[in-house]
């Protein structure tokens, strides 16, 4: 029977964490993909404007952002491994790794704040032109996801410190990690698209 198969299907047939987060992740990825494609089409249509504006973005900030997110993602992946082998008394190790992810996410937001402040000081905002409308919309939308990820990781880190995640209970930490990796993955596409990829003149 179909219902019986669903009940008896092995857990490793499903992605890590709660199944619901994967529907959320796929919905978010679809939204980001639509935004990326819209940006790419606009780039083609308004090439002179985009080609002139793109060099005004500081790619070094983007590289720092990338390194921070990769480092955070590494910490979160290690936290999941630590939780999977921990006894209920050994939750602290995964908590420490999760805090690395929280710190990296927080520093990402701080560096994004500095980047925006420099733009505002130069008189550039959302209404300056179409390129900067995309720039602020895409990066702010992503930064909101990072902010949510930082809050989620912080909550999970506190719970891990109290021994909530161990070899027999990893769904919560896997769910948070999956969300965080999705945020990281989106940035890795966003960074070259927005800051770097140019059409040779």
């Amino acid at each position, binding site marked *: 029977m179909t219902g019986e198969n669903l009940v008896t299907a092995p857990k490793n*047939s499903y*992605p890590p964490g709660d199944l619901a987060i994967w529907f959320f992740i796929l919905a978010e990825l679809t939204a980001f*993909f639509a935004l990326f494609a819209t940006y790419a089409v606009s780039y*083609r249509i308004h090439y002179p404007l985009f080609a002139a504006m793109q060099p005004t973005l500081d790619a070094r900030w983007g590289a720092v952002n*990338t390194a921070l997110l990769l480092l955070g993602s*590494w910490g979160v992946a290690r936290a*999941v*491994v630590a939780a999977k082998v921990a006894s209920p008394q050994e939750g602290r190790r995964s908590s420490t790794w999760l805090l690395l992810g929280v710190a990296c996410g927080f520093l990402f937001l701080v560096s994004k704040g500095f980047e925006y402040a420099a733009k505002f000081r130069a008189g550039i905002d959302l209404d300056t032109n179409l390129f900067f409308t995309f720039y602020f919309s895409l990066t702010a939308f992503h930064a909101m996801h990072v902010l949510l990820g930082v809050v989620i990781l912080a909550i999970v880190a506190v719970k891990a410190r109290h021994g909530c995640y161990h070899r027999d209970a990893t769904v919560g930490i896997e769910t948070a990690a999956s969300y965080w990796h999705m945020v990281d993955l989106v940035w890795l596409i966003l960074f*070259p698209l927005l800051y*770097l990829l140019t059409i040779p003149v």
Partner: protein
Amino acid sequence: MEDPAAAKRRRLIDVTALILLVATVGAAALSEWGLQQVAGERLSYFLLLLAVGKGLAVVDVFMDLRPVVWRWRGLLWTWVVGAVAICGALILG
């Protein structure tokens, strides 16, 4: 004694993260070489490839999707490769 499977997975995560981090720092250093036009262009393509690499790493290493059936892994792989290919093709024409 440490679980060998966990130790293997930990090493895999470490190596993947290190490669991606070195690649990012290397790509950023490229832009500072002074050959702005050439280096900038190469950096663009390099980081786009890095995006694909990172996507695949997330799918298979960080997210631990290896034991998962293809209908789940395939969705993420499709997104990574599709997003890069379609946006790259639209911009580069």
